[in-house]
C-alpha cells in the first residue's frame, strides 16, 4: 500500500462492531462446547503450573489452544470479514509450534513454586484470562454468547498465555513475541470500534512485560555479584 502513513487507523476497520460481535455469537454457537474444554484446560494449567516438572504438558496444552484459535477462529471465521486474519492465523500457528518445540520438546518452560511476586501476578493473569475476561462482555452490555473464551478466542488466550509465561521460572523470549504483538493488534481493532475492552490487552501486556523485567533483576544482580 503506497503512502500508508497517510491512512488513519479507522481506514483499516473493515467491519462494524455489530458485525464483529455477531461473528463471535455465530462462532460460539458453532464451536460449542469447546468453550467448556477451554475452561477445563485453563483450570488444568493452573493446577499444573505449581509443579516443577509440568512445563512440557503446560506448553502442549497451550499449543493446542493457540492452534485451535488459529484455525477455528482466525482462518475459518474471522477471515470472512477481515482479510488480515489469514496472517493472524499464521502467527497463532507459529506460536503453537514455538510452544510445542520450546516448551514440550526442549523443555524450556520450567515452573517452580509460585512464591515470587512475578509468579503470583502471572497466576492472577491466567485466572483473569480463563474466568474473568469472558464475563467482561456482560459489563459492556453484550451477552455471554458474544463473549470471548480462553482457548477459543484470541484475547483471553493471549492473557492466559502471558500469565503462564510469567508463572514460569524460565520462559524463552521468543514465546513472548506473538502474544505481545497481538496485544497491540487487538487494542487497535477494539479502539477503532470504540470498545471499552480496547484497554484490556494493552494493560495486560504492560503488566506482563513489567513483571518479566522486574523478575529478571535479582537473578542478573546475583550473576553480576
Amino acid at each position, binding site marked *: 500500500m503506497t503512502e500508508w502513513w497517510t491512512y488513519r487507523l479507522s481506514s483499516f476497520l473493515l467491519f*462494524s462492531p455489530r458485525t464483529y460481535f455477531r461473528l463471535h455469537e455465530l462462532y460460539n454457537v458453532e464451536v460449542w462446547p469447546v468453550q467448556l474444554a477451554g475452561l477445563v484446560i485453563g483450570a488444568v494449567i493452573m493446577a499444573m503450573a505449581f509443579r516443577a516438572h509440568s512445563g512440557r504438558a503446560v506448553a502442549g496444552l497451550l499449543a493446542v489452544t493457540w492452534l485451535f484459535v488459529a484455525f477455528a477462529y482466525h482462518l475459518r471465521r474471522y477471515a470472512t470479514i477481515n482479510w488480515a486474519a489469514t496472517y493472524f492465523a499464521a502467527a497463532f500457528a507459529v506460536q503453537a509450534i514455538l510452544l510445542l518445540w520450546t516448551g514440550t520438546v526442549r523443555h524450556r518452560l520450567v515452573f517452580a513454586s509460585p512464591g515470587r511476586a512475578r509468579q503470583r501476578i502471572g497466576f492472577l493473569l491466567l485466572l483473569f484470562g480463563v474466568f474473568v475476561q469472558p464475563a467482561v462482555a456482560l459489563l459492556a452490555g453484550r451477552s455471554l454468547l458474544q463473549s470471548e473464551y480462553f482457548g477459543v478466542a484470541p484475547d483471553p488466550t493471549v492473557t492466559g498465555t502471558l500469565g503462564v509465561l510469567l508463572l514460569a521460572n524460565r520462559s524463552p523470549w521468543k514465546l513472548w513475541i506473538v502474544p505481545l504483538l497481538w496485544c497491540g493488534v487487538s487494542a487497535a481493532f477494539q479502539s477503532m470500534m470504540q470498545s471499552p475492552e480496547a484497554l484490556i490487552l494493552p494493560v495486560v501486556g504492560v503488566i506482563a512485560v513489567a513483571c518479566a523485567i522486574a523478575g529478571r533483576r535479582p537473578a542478573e544482580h546475583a550473576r553480576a555479584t
Partner: protein
Amino acid sequence: MPVVGLGTWITFNVGDDRVARDACTDVMRAFFDEGGRVIDSSPMYGSSQEVVGYGLARLGMPKALFAADKVWIASASRGSAQVEESRRHWGISRFDLLQVHNLLSWQEHLPMLLAMKSAGRLRYVGITTSEGRRHRDVEAIMRTRPIDFVQVTYNPIDRDVEARILPLARERGIAVIVNRPFQQGALIDSVMRHPLPGWAAEIGCTNWAQALLKYIVSHPAVTCVIPATTRVAHVRENMGAASGPMPDEALRGRMAADVARL
C-alpha cells in the same frame, strides 16, 4: 445515471451471517425500488462483494444494475485474476466500471483495464482515492490517461477536490463518483445533534442525510454519490436526495459554511 448510488464499505462486510446478508439484500431491494443503479464495492472490503452477489442473485439480477468494482492488489500480474474473482463474487457477466483502488499499482493495472475495455469486456475505466490522498497523482492521471471515471472524497467539510479535480473532470468529460459523503458516519453524527437549518426546506430536504447529499450531487461535476448503509429507512432517505430542487451556487456556499460551523 441516478445521482445516488450505494456504497458497500463496512456495511456489506458481514461474512457468511445469513441474517445480516438478508438485511443487506433488503437494502439493495429498497435501493433498486427507489430507482438506484450504481453499486460500488472492492476486493478490499472483506466479504462485501460476495454479499452483493448474494443479494443480486436473490433479487433476480436487476437489469438496472450498474456494477462498479475495483482492482486492489500490489502485484501487477495478479490484477486480472483478482478482477475475475470479483466478477464471480458478484455473479455477473461483466462489470460496467472497474477502478484502480487508491491508485495501488495504477501504472500496471490501468493498461490492463483499458485493454479489457477495448476488448469489450468492460464499459468504463476509472481510478479512486479517498480522504484527500494523492490528489496530484489523480490530477496527472486525469490529464494524461483516457479514464472515464474518477472517484474521490467530497462533502461539505472535505472540499479539496473543488479547487482542481472537479473542474478538471468537467473540462475533460470525466465522470465523478463521490465516496465517504458522511465521513464514515462521523459527519452525520456530528450534524444530527443540530436542527436542520431553514435552507433545508428550500431544497426539499427533510433530514440531514439528504441535505449533505444534495450539497454533493448539486456540484455540476459530480455524477454520483455512494453512501453506504445497513438500513432500508436510510436508503430511502438517501434516495430522496436525487429528486426535488437542488441548491444553487449561493446556497451551496451557505450550506458549506453552516455545516463547517456546527
